[in-house]
């Protein structure tokens, strides 16, 4: 048991727990019994809070643990995370503004709310909501994997249920303060999380290369290790550069992940919680600061190779757990107290997104399933109550997920989630601009994209871990089959499954739209107007927040002209 690390970790963990509970009173509105307040923090976060919140939301334990682990085990392909977050912001810069405005104008809390209003179709909204919940669940589980990697490195490496017990305790605490404080809890804790993370990474990327003989040495060691033969596959592990067959995969994975990023319900939650369009625009320029951090962090995977770090054997599975590479690197190279800070940074870094994701999933459940199908006349207070309960259910669902599934597959789970959520792009993102695609065509495209995506993922083996199915998201073009037709012969070049599935989805949506338009099938009623997509915080006659009939506090503070 690593006592020093454990004490530092526990102290910081207790501190954020305290923050999580008092957050309920932070900038609180008149009531927490409304989804605008519990689920969106009162829709009034300014530039700084939004930066910490969205940053804490998007750059998760997946970032801290799994990306470096991927570089550690496979080399350059793992670095896709950097181009992914570079293009994500220019890509969503404009659509996100429209999403914020229409949601502010119409009181939407979830992306599925928007689809409901845009197409007047509760079925399409339900599909979008379910897709969001299903894609978010493994993402929450992934946060648990990050947390558990840290706990195991600190000595809580038990087998069976006992091995998961510390994780369970941490999550119960998280569940309780999220239940009480809603989105304000992760927003406040995100400050602590990000400051710790920046501190740890900056120290790590300056101190470790000096200690290990410089970057030249590190890349040299990494290349030697990666190009040696992996006994499980008989091929090299990887390379520090891309090869001829994985460049297309690298680019399409980066692009597909960027497209998916703001389709995730928790990203939308972070966006809708901000005060106005200006806050969002500034953040699109400020959020890439995290990308720099992410790139540096990823390189720690190579640093770990150079330092001779060995992944810990997970006593629950009996196999080496790649996700422990970074915690083990910190354990081996830093003084115990600083390793404790690093562990706290990763641990808290798992809690913030887990809280936001569970809130987002709870919002989806409440707005698009409960209120739509179970209790149509639910009051705002009942909605808030339902969402609070749903956030508990979602979190424990994720725990069950993690206890029964090997943590080694964390990154693959997230990649599957990415493939799934991408299939809502036509109904959510394209619909922000046009209603040309017919609602039944969107449903058809969704079915095809999702089905085809899952079939392709199912067929991808992973020789390194000896699994025949769901071994990754890189599909050799030679295996790409359209009803038995192989358009690319037996090309070994790889492509991202999500990208292919989305292409299929769009094609089907396009064709069905063309056909269905000749048959005069209703395309639903659009409750949004052109103006809705341009409202801003100071627009006159805005719908009041939290339905209290009073103007939000900011209006009072705004200077009279």
């Amino acid at each position, binding site marked *: 048991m690593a006592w020093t690390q454990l004490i530092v970790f526990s102290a910081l963990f207790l501190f954020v727990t305290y923050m999580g509970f008092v957050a309920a009173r932070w*900038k609180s509105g008149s009531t927490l019994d409304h989804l605008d307040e519990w689920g969106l923090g009162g829709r*009034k*976060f*300014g*530039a*700084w*809070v939004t930066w910490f919140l969205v940053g804490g939301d998007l750059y998760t334990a997946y970032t801290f643990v799994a990306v470096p682990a991927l570089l550690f085990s496979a080399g*350059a392909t793992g*670095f896709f995370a*950097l*181009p992914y977050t*570079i*293009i994500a*912001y*220019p*890509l969503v*810069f*404009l659509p996100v503004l429209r999403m914020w405005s229409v949601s502010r104008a119409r009181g939407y809390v979830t992306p599925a709310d928007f689809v409901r209003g845009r197409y007047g179709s509760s079925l399409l909204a339900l599909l979008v909501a379910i897709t969001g919940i299903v894609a978010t669940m493994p993402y929450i589980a992934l946060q648990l994997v990050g947390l558990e990697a840290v706990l195991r490195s600190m000595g809580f490496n038990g087998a069976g249920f006992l091995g998961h017990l510390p994780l369970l305790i941490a999550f119960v605490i998280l569940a309780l303060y999220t239940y009480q404080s809603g989105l304000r809890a992760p927003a406040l804790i995100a400050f602590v999380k990000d400051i710790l993370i920046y501190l740890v990474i900056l120290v790590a990327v300056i101190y470790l290369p000096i200690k290990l003989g*410089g*970057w*030249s*040495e*590190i*890349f040299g060691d990494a290349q030697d290790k990666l190009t040696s033969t992996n006994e499980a596959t008989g091929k090299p592990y990887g390379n*520090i*550069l*891309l090869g001829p067959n994985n*460049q297309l995969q*690298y*680019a399409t994975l*980066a*692009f597909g992940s960027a497209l998916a990023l703001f389709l995730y319900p928790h990203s939308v939650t972070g966006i809708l919680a901000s*005060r106005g369009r*200006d806050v969002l*625009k*500034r953040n*699109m*320029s*400020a959020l*890439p600061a995290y*990308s*720099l951090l992410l*790139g540096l962090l990823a*390189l720690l995977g190579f640093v770990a190779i150079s330092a001779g770090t060995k992944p810990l054997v997970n006593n629950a599975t009996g196999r080496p757990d790649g996700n422990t590479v970074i915690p083990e690197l910190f354990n081996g190279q830093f003084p115990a107290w600083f390793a404790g800070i690093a562990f706290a940074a990763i641990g808290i870094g798992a809690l913030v997104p887990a809280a936001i994701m569970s809130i987002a999933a709870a919002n989806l459940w409440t707005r698009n399933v409960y209120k739509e199908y179970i209790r149509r006349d639910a009051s705002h207070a009942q909605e808030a109550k339902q969402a609070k309960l749903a956030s508990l259910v979602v979190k424990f669902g994720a725990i069950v997920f993690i206890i029964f599934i090997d943590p080694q597959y964390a990154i693959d789970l997230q990649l599957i989630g990415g493939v799934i959520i991408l299939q809502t792009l036509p109904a959510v993102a394209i619909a922000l*601009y046009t209603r040309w695609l017919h609602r039944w065509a969107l449903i058809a495209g969704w079915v095809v994209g999702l089905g085809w995506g899952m079939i392709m993922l199912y067929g991808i083996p992973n020789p390194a871990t000896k699994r025949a199915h769901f071994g990754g998201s890189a599909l050799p073009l030679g295996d790409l089959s359209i009803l038995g037709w192989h358009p690319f012969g037996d090309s070994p070049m790889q492509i991202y499954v999500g990208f292919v599935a989305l292409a299929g989805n769009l094609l089907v949506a396009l064709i069905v739209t063309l056909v269905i338009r000749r048959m005069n099938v209703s395309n639903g009623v659009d409750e949004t*107007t*052109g*103006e809705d997509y*341009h409202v801003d915080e*100071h627009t006159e006659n805005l719908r009041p927040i939290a339905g209290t009939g009073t103007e*939000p*506090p*900011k209006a009072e*503070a705004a*200077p009279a*002209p």
Partner: protein
Amino acid sequence: MTSSGETRGKVTGLVFNPWNLLLIVPFIILLTPIYNMQEPEFIGMPFFYWFQFLMIAVGVASTIIVYRMTRKVPTDTASGDDPDVDTLDEGSVR
């Protein structure tokens, strides 16, 4: 230059501004062959890595320029003291 209709002084429909095209520039990072190489190295880092770090700055520049150039000329509502990022504002609650 807004290419779509404004009705009753309010913006509707699509607003297109040529500056927005700058948002396409960072996408050159998807063309892997232009940077997938070892040389030239920078402080021991292969070109593949430091080029992508450099592209972060390009991405930031593109969004900043678009933000600045497409900002609406201050109208009656946005009077003078735009709450600043540097003042830890959260402008509203007091």
